[in-house]
């Protein structure tokens, strides 16, 4: 079983997000980057499948400038076998069609059985790249997956639907599957894993980037039209004011 995992490096949820003066993007030098949350679950699912099978290969693939090697190394430290960096400028990497095309070109000769990705990135949140990639490579696809079972060359996945519903979908391999957070417990890298990762291969590709079919004109902080009454003071004062608000304004006690 040969599994690719698409990993995106995104600003951490606690990172500041200063906007560049020309409002074209955030100031990347001021950002603390982490592995995209749902991608971390996707990686764990791939590692568990490889362990259950007793053989196979897990390849982590990340698209972006050299900083993304950090998340590739993190993936290798957790147990992935090798990495591929598709070296592109991050601002040029907005359009999922372009990104999926670049990944498709990079991996089409590899004949992966499964491509896992997180269901969406925590930065742009386009939520399309894994599905577009699957379509481009003629794979079956499924999104928002909460559980996987592999047998007899097929994969059965539990998809999350809306309003608390789920659905089992069975597909032939190869398959490109987007993973919902929470389906497993992602491991932390061991010290041995971290040391071993340094010796593992990262293949850096520098392809020509196609023309974007959608782009960001302007990035900005949203203006809230809601007036929020802020309650402050010491913890005791806050509690006192909250109780008054519950009683006199909202009238729930």
């Amino acid at each position, binding site marked *: 079983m040969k599994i690719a995992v698409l990993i995106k490096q995104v600003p951490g949820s606690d990172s500041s997000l200063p906007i560049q003066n020309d409002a074209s993007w955030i100031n990347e030098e001021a950002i603390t980057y982490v592995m995209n949350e749902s991608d971390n679950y996707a990686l764990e699912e791939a590692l568990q499948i490889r362990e259950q099978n007793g053989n196979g290969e897990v390849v982590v693939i990340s698209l972006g400038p050299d900083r993304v090697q950090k998340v590739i190394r993190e993936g290798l430290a957790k147990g992935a076998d090798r990495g591929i960096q598709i070296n592109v400028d991050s601002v040029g990497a907005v359009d999922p*069609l372009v990104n999926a095309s670049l990944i498709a070109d990079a991996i089409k000769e590899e004949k992966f059985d499964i491509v896992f990705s997180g269901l969406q990135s925590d930065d742009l*949140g386009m*939520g399309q790249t894994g599905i577009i990639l699957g379509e481009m490579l003629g794979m079956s696809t499924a999104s928002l997956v909460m559980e996987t079972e592999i047998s007899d060359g097929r994969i059965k996945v539990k998809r999350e639907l*809306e309003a608390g519903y789920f659905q089992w979908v069975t*597909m032939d391999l190869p398959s490109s599957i987007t993973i919902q957070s929470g389906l497993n417990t992602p491991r932390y890298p061991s010290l041995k894993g971290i040391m071993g990762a340094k010796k593992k291969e990262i293949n850096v590709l520098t392809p020509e980037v196609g023309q974007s079919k959608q*782009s960001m004109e302007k990035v900005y902080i949203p203006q809230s039209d809601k007036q929020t009454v802020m309650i402050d003071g010491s*913890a005791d004062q806050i509690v006192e004011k909250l*109780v008054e608000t519950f009683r006199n304004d*909202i009238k729930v*006690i």
Partner: protein
Amino acid sequence: MDILIVIEDNNSKIHRMGLESIAAAQSISKDKGFSIGVLVMGGNAEGLSTEVSKYDVSEVLKLNNDIISSYSSDGYAEAVKQVIEQENPKYVFFGHTYQVRDYVPKISAKLMKPFLVDNVSINKDGEKFIFTKQMFNAKLYSDMVAKDNGPLLISFQSAAFSADNAQSGSASIRDISVDIDSSMIKTESDEPFQEEAGGMDLTAAEVIVSIGRGIGKEENIPMAQDLAKAIGGELASSRPVVDSGWLSAPHQIGSSGQSVSPKMYLALGISGAIQHVVGMKGSKNIVAINKDPEAPIFEIADYGVVGDVVEIIPKLSEALKEN
């Protein structure tokens, strides 16, 4: 046809976000004189087309055959792709539902046309449109433009437009067909099911005490339960709390859980990720307590406290019990 809207079947009814898409299309069509077509497909297309024809749109396109009578991503993607090729609209509108996320990227790949997702508004800029989407869990917005002549695939976030604003009218219904072969369908789908069904119905609660990641650890759950009891409300949570196994799935509010609109929603240590917000922003009063003054939950809160929920919750329970 200028705008094609694809309506989703929600248990034989028009998915609410389909009506929101109609409202969105109508809002930009008035001064442009756009024609609006609405596609209904699948096993319930007959009844749905009659429902949709009661809105102020140009026409309703009705599509059904054996292969698309129930949903599959391959079947729906191929069917809608062929309808787009037949009708050649400038824009194709969708609600940003889970189903749309599952199959519309495939249409984007088949046609090599961009899919501008999860928009919260449309603004006109000369002859083109600017579509605004949220990024970084709604901390920033981005104005997106298409660099393509279309057809453009566009989806709208839940409640970006109000279904109540969908104007009624009378539209003709046209049967259409597509050429799909069963060999194109790579998936076999079982029936949808609910887990832990019949557990809790939070939709009737007047007060909801909802906890998020800020509660810190499982050992702090009882203090939230205690607060819910003290205030006479139901305990609920955002997704991370359920993912961590601290509360069971029926407690979850948001796009993958329940949607609620209580008299008071007390959001404790909830950052306000959009997946959560879509399930509670209709609440009459939102009171948010969060350590991070930049948390997006404060954008929609009526009352806000910047503070540590683990410190405030026990004191609040105590004060409520004294009253």
